[in-house]
């Protein structure tokens, strides 16, 4: 009986996203009770909901950086009262960024975004095939599991280390947090981005833990999927910040 009822859900593989397209599968139909018809949790619906939640959740992150950007541009154009001469002067000090180092960091982050995407597609495939492999006697052969997630975590940590080195380099060049308004913004923007990226790394570690706890691959896939979109967003955000700091000096 059990084998029969699990073959019923072989329907699920049809919803795999052929090669990782971004359209979410739309089964479940908004019934809203979070369960499929046969009593197993409706992962498609949960994935759709999680993706929607992520899209909504990224909005305040955008608003945060929009606020910082507007503050940056306003402060840049603002004259300052020089107390010695009692005149208004422009005191914006262009920061001498260690741009070679930052460029290397950017490449690391972009590569990590690619590995993250590969990890996402890998687990999407696994999740799609899970019902088939659960049928006794059916084997798809030992699939080679390249540790894309682990590589992404390592690259993410590498990026954070690189940012730390960039801070050390800035300090060596005499730019501290409170040196000038421009250096305050450099530290602010890089630190806020680093904190958000660290959140992504924590989410990846969480998915590794769930893997150890033998949670269903469909549940892990949701965590990996939304972390991947978050990760891509963080890569784009960093490119934006880097461009802002380089162009609007």
């Amino acid at each position, binding site marked *: 009986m059990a084998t029969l009822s699990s073959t019923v859900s072989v329907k699920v593989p049809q919803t795999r996203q052929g090669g990782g397209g971004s359209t979410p599968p739309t089964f479940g139909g*908004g019934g809203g009770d979070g369960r499929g018809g046969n009593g197993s949790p409706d992962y498609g619906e949960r994935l759709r909901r999680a993706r929607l939640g992520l899209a909504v959740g990224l909005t305040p992150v955008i608003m945060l950086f929009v606020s910082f950007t507007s503050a940056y541009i306003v402060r840049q154009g603002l004259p300052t009262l020089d*107390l010695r001469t009692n005149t208004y002067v422009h*005191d914006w000090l262009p920061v001498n960024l260690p741009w070679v180092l930052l460029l290397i960091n950017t490449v690391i982050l972009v590569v990590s975004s690619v590995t993250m995407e590969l990890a996402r597609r890998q687990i999407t495939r696994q999740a799609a095939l899970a019902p088939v492999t659960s049928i006794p006697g059916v084997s798809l052969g030992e699939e080679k599991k390249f540790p894309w997630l682990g590589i992404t975590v390592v690259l993410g940590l590498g990026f954070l280390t690189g940012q730390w080195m960039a801070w050390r380099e800035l300090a060596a060049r005499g730019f501290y947090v409170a040196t000038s308004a421009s250096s305050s913004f450099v530290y602010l923007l890089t630190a806020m981005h680093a904190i958000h990226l660290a959140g992504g790394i924590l989410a990846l570690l969480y998915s590794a833990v769930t893997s150890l706890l033998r949670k269903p691959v469909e549940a892990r896939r949701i965590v990996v999927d939304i*972390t991947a979109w978050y990760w891509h967003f963080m890569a784009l955000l960093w490119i934006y910040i880097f461009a802002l700091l380089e162009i609007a000096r």
Partner: protein
Amino acid sequence: MASTEIVHAHAAPQGFIRKYIFSLDHKIIGLQYYFLALIAVFLGMGLSLLMRIHLIWPTASLPIFGDIKPETYLMFVTMHGTIMVFFVLTTAPQGGFGNYFLPIQIGAPDMAFPTLNMLSFWTTFVAFVVLIAAFFVGAPLHGWTGYAPLSAVPSSGPGEGLGADLWITSIALFCAASLMGALNFITTTLDMRAKGMSMMRMPLTCWAWFITAILGLLAFGVLAAGGILLLMDRNLGTSFFVPGGLNFTGQTSFPPGGFSPSTDLVKHNGGSPLLWQHLFWFFGHPEVYIAIVPGMGVASQLLSTFSRKPIFGYRAMVYAMLAIGILGFVVWGHHMFMSGMSPYSAFAFSIMTMAIGVPSAIKTFNWIGTIYKGRVRFHTPMLFAIGFVSLFVSGGLSGPFLAQPVIDIPLHDTAYVPGHFHLIMGVAAIFGIFAATYYWFPKMFGHMMNETLGRWHFFITLVGTYSIFMPMHYLGMAGQPRRYSQLTEVAYLHPLIPLNRFITYAAIVTIAGQFIFLFNLFWSMAKGKKAADNPWEATTLEWTTATPPPHDNFGGRTPVVNHGPYEYSVPGAPRDYIMQNDPATAPVH
């Protein structure tokens, strides 16, 4: 991630802690928000009483705080404003009633992300505890708006050290909590509506909570940005908001030879206090709509239900709320006419602000159109809904005046502005909360609230709040400044003292009246008349389920919606209301 939570795929929790403390059930979380707001509102009200007493008896020694120094008075101002705006007006209508009734009204078993929902409440709770902790180390003086440089330099005054750090931390935690809540509300509304519940079939309360959540989602990130910059100015020596040349040593006379930059002046240079005001009010103006929009939804729902008529202009109501929300993001400059602003910007902000009068007038017109020729049932919730409309009009009418820089500049720092915003954003929003409490109490607790006590409470509160805040408009026009702790020493204010006394007496009576509500609330929970499942003969989905609703809201059923939210007195229908989940073709006899 919370997203992996299986929504009600498990049985209801049995243990006390999982059931009532760290509950994932949106109904329990809603009640937790509501009771947090109840504690906060009595605290905030107590502070306002102390302020009113101090204003007319400035030499009196008050309980707990003793002799009131000017900085103590400003501490009351700050804490009253912060507690009321964040932990009452943002918490009760959205976190409380929104959490409890949004999923039920759209036919969902719970919020989209229950764990996130629980986290959101407990973060709010910690934020509240951190804020109250500021009392014990000396609360800040900078008001709920936290204007820099007062808020940005720890040495700027008593309470601006650790107290201000706690205040900012509390606000930052509140931002995080509100964002989690907003994320949940939006996802739930978009993704978890029952079959047949199209967006344009949602009750206007759901629209109000949805729009409020969008406002919060866009606004709180900006406040968080401002808070981060403020913390950096205070603790890392940056100069985002602090200009150079400030002296906070308390010297009252200019020393011979001038101040010494190294010892007397702040170490900051080049920051802009106006930058804080822009960031703050970009959040702050939407925030006042976060407080009032849920009240608009509740008023719409109740006026329709108790007039036994469909809401007048459902779509117009939705679009008006959306318009108010959108316009709310482009008017923040009207809080800053006094702060120095190009007349051209001031003109633009002024025009946009007055434009909000248009959707507000549409709403008012539709509310009156809804009652007009209705068979009105004057139950207590209806009284408060009518009171809401009354206060919305009388508080709102001073808005277009204050929106004009030439009128705002003389009135801005007078009692006129507190009169204006307390009527519309304070008392009107509170009336929305009261209306919602009396209306949904039977569903939440299974008993009816006492009608006689409810009426007493309504009339005392309505007359009392008008008596408090209407005269403030006259005080303002007569030139009485706001935020001053002592008014009795100034000759030109002497003729205003009797009116100030009257306001304080009215405040004492009104506050006493609130204990009627408190008594009614707890007495009715135990001893109130047993409530039927649909005591008000209303149409929305929360009245189709048991009282109080079961763990998954509909007891295993999934409601199917066939009707709009306000089908009252439909010709040919067997009774004067058609519930949203009634069969699509009502039997015609």
